[in-house]
C-alpha cells in the first residue's frame, strides 16, 4: 500500500473550489514534490491529508489510515511529522519549551542531532525569532520523533540560501534512511534539486504527475541575450524557442531545444550580455500546458501577490 493514497479528492469551500478531484499516490521512501503557483490548492490538499479539513468528496489515506476518521488516524499520526506553512508558536515561550512540549507528546529521539544541523536559538523566546529561526525550529519538531512520513508546506520559505542547501542535503539523507517525504513548493529549482517525482497543481487540479527528469526536459531554460546585431529575426528558425519577448537592446525567450544548436546560433552573433537561467514556474506552465489556460493562471498568480 502506498504511503499516501489520494483518490478523487475534492474540497469545496462553497464560494471557491479548493481542490477538484485530485488523485495521486506517494510511494514509500520517495521524495514527492507538490508544485504549483500560490493559490493552486497545495495547502488545502496538505491540510486535508492531515485531517484538518474534511474532504467534500473523495478519499485519502495516509500510512493506511483514513484521514476522515479522527480515531483511526491517531495511531498513524505518531509516525507522521508535519511542518505547516505558518508555525504560530506561542510568542512568550522559549524554543526549548516548545520542543519539550512536542517531545512530551510525540517523542524526541533525534532532537540533539537535528539541533546540530538546524540551529534555532532554543534558549530565547519565540518572540525574538526571525522567520528563518522559526522555520528551523519547525523543521526540528517535524523530524525529531523520527517519523516514517514527513509532510511539509513550503519548508524552505524564509530560510537563507545556505540553510536551504543544508536542508536539501538533509532531505536527501532522510530518503537514504527510508523516510518518505511529501512537500509543497512554488519554486521549480527547489523541487528539481531534491524530488524524485512531482505533482503539478493548478487552479485546484492536478495537471501533471512527472518524474523530475521529464519535467526538467520540458521546463527548458530562460535565455536573456543582448546583442549588437539582430538576433530576434533568426530565432523562429530554431526548434524549441518559445515565448519570445524583445526589449530595448535584446531579447528574452524560453528554450527547450538542444543546447548545442542554440550555442552555435548564438556564436554567429555579437553578444554583449547573456544570462541563461531557470525559468519561473509560471513560464514552465506556459509552454508545457498550453498558452490560454496558463496565461490565466499566470494572471491569477500576479493578482495573488
Amino acid at each position, binding site marked *: 500500500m502506498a504511503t499516501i493514497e489520494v483518490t478523487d479528492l475534492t474540497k469545496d469551500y462553497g464560494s471557491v473550489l479548493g481542490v477538484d478531484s485530485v488523485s495521486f499516490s506517494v510511494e514509500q521512501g520517495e521524495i514527492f514534490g507538490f508544485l504549483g503557483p500560490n493559490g493552486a490548492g497545495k495547502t488545502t490538499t496538505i*491540510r486535508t491529508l*492531515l*485531517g*484538518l*479539513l*474534511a474532504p467534500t468528496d473523495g478519499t485519502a489515506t495516509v500510512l493506511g489510515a483514513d484521514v476522515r476518521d*479522527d*480515531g483511526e488516524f*491517531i*495511531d498513524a*499520526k*505518531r509516525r*507522521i511529522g*508535519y511542518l*505547516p506553512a*505558518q*508555525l*504560530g*508558536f*506561542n510568542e*512568550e*515561550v522559549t524554543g526549548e*519549551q516548545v520542543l519539550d*512540549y*512536542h517531545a*512530551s*507528546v*510525540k517523542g524526541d529521539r533525534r532532537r540533539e542531532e537535528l539541533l546540530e544541523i538546524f540551529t534555532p536559538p532554543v534558549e530565547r523566546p519565540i518572540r525574538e525569532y526571525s522567520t528563518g529561526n522559526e522555520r528551523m525550529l519547525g523543521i526540528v*519538531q517535524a523530524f525529531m520523533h523520527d517519523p516514517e512520513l514527513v509532510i511539509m508546506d513550503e519548508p524552505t520559505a524564509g530560510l537563507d540560501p545556505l540553510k536551504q542547501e543544508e536542508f536539501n542535503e538533509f532531505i536527501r539523507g532522510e530518503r537514504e534512511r527510508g523516510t518518505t517525504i511529501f512537500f509543497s513548493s512554488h519554486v521549480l529549482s527547489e523541487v528539481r534539486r531534491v524530488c524524485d517525482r512531482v505533482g503539478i497543481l493548478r487552479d485546484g487540479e492536478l495537471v501533471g504527475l512527472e518524474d523530475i527528469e521529464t519535467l526538467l526536459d520540458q521546463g527548458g531554460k530562460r535565455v536573456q541575450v543582448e546583442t549588437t546585431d539582430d538576433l530576434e529575426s533568426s530565432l523562429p528558425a530554431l526548434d524549441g524557442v518559445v515565448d519570445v519577448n524583445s526589449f530595448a537592446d535584446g531579447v528574452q525567450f524560453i528554450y527547450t531545444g538542444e543546447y548545442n544548436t542554440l550555442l552555435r546560433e548564438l556564436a554567429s552573433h555579437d553578444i554583449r550580455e547573456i544570462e541563461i537561467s531557470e525559468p519561473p514556474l509560471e513560464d514552465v506552465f506556459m509552454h508545457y500546458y498550453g498558452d490560454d489556460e496558463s496565461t490565466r493562471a499566470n494572471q491569477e498568480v500576479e493578482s495573488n501577490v
Partner: protein
Amino acid sequence: MFETTRYEANRRVRGTAILTIAISLYAAFIVWYFTILEGVDYEAVFESMPPAMIEAFGIESLATIGGFLGTQIYNFVWLLGLGLYFAYAAGGLIAGDIEHERMDLLLSFPVSRSRLLVEKTLSLLLPLVTLNVVVGVVIYVLVQAIGESIDPMYLVLAHALSIPYLLVCIAIGVVLSVLVDRAAIAERAAIGLIFVLFLVESVVGGASEFEWIQYISPTYYYDPTPILIDGSYELLDTGVLLAAFVVLLLIGQILFQRRDI
C-alpha cells in the same frame, strides 16, 4: 497524559500569580474598609440604595463581616468579575490557536480533537483552584486579624460552590471558542454573554411574570452571601451547574470535531 494541560498551565502561572495578588489586595482593602465602617447606620444606607441594586449585588446584611464580604467581594469579584474572566480566558482557548494557525501543528499530534479540547480546558483549573485557595486563606487570616470571626466552613463552602459556577462560565467560553475563528470575537462574545446573563438574573428576578428567565442564568445558581452569613445553600443548584458544564462541554466537543480548521 495531560502534556497539553501541563504546557498550557505553565503558560498561565504568571497571569494566575498576578491575578491572585491583585484580588488578595482588593480583599485586604475591603476587610480594612469594614473596620472603619463600624457604627454606620446600615438601615439608612439600605434606604438610600435603589432596590434593583440591592438585588443585583445581593446586598443583604452589611452589618456582619459575612454579609459585608459577600456583597463587596463575592458578589462583585467572584460572581461577576471572575465569571467574566474565566469566560474570556476560555473564549481564547481554541479560537486563538486557530487564528494564529497554531492549531495545525497541535492537531498533527497523535491526540484526538476531543482530548485536546479537554486538556486545554483543564489548564484553566490552575487559576481556578489557586484563586479560590489563596484568596480564601487570605480572607480568613485578614478577618481574624481585625478581630472579627467567620465560620471557616462557610468560607470553604462559598469558595467550593463557586467552582461549578465558574466551570459553567468556562464552558460557555469554550463553546464560543470552537464556533469562531478569531480569539477577540470569541472572548468578547463570552464576556458579553456572561454580563447579559448576570443582568437578566438580577433585573428580571424582581419581575414576577418573567421570573422564569432568571433560571437560564448560571448566576442564579450560585449565591455566596447567604452561604457566608449562615451557611445556607441548595445542593440542587450545584447539580444544575455541574450538569450544565458537562452538557456545554459536550456541545463544544461535537462542534470542534465537526469543524474545518
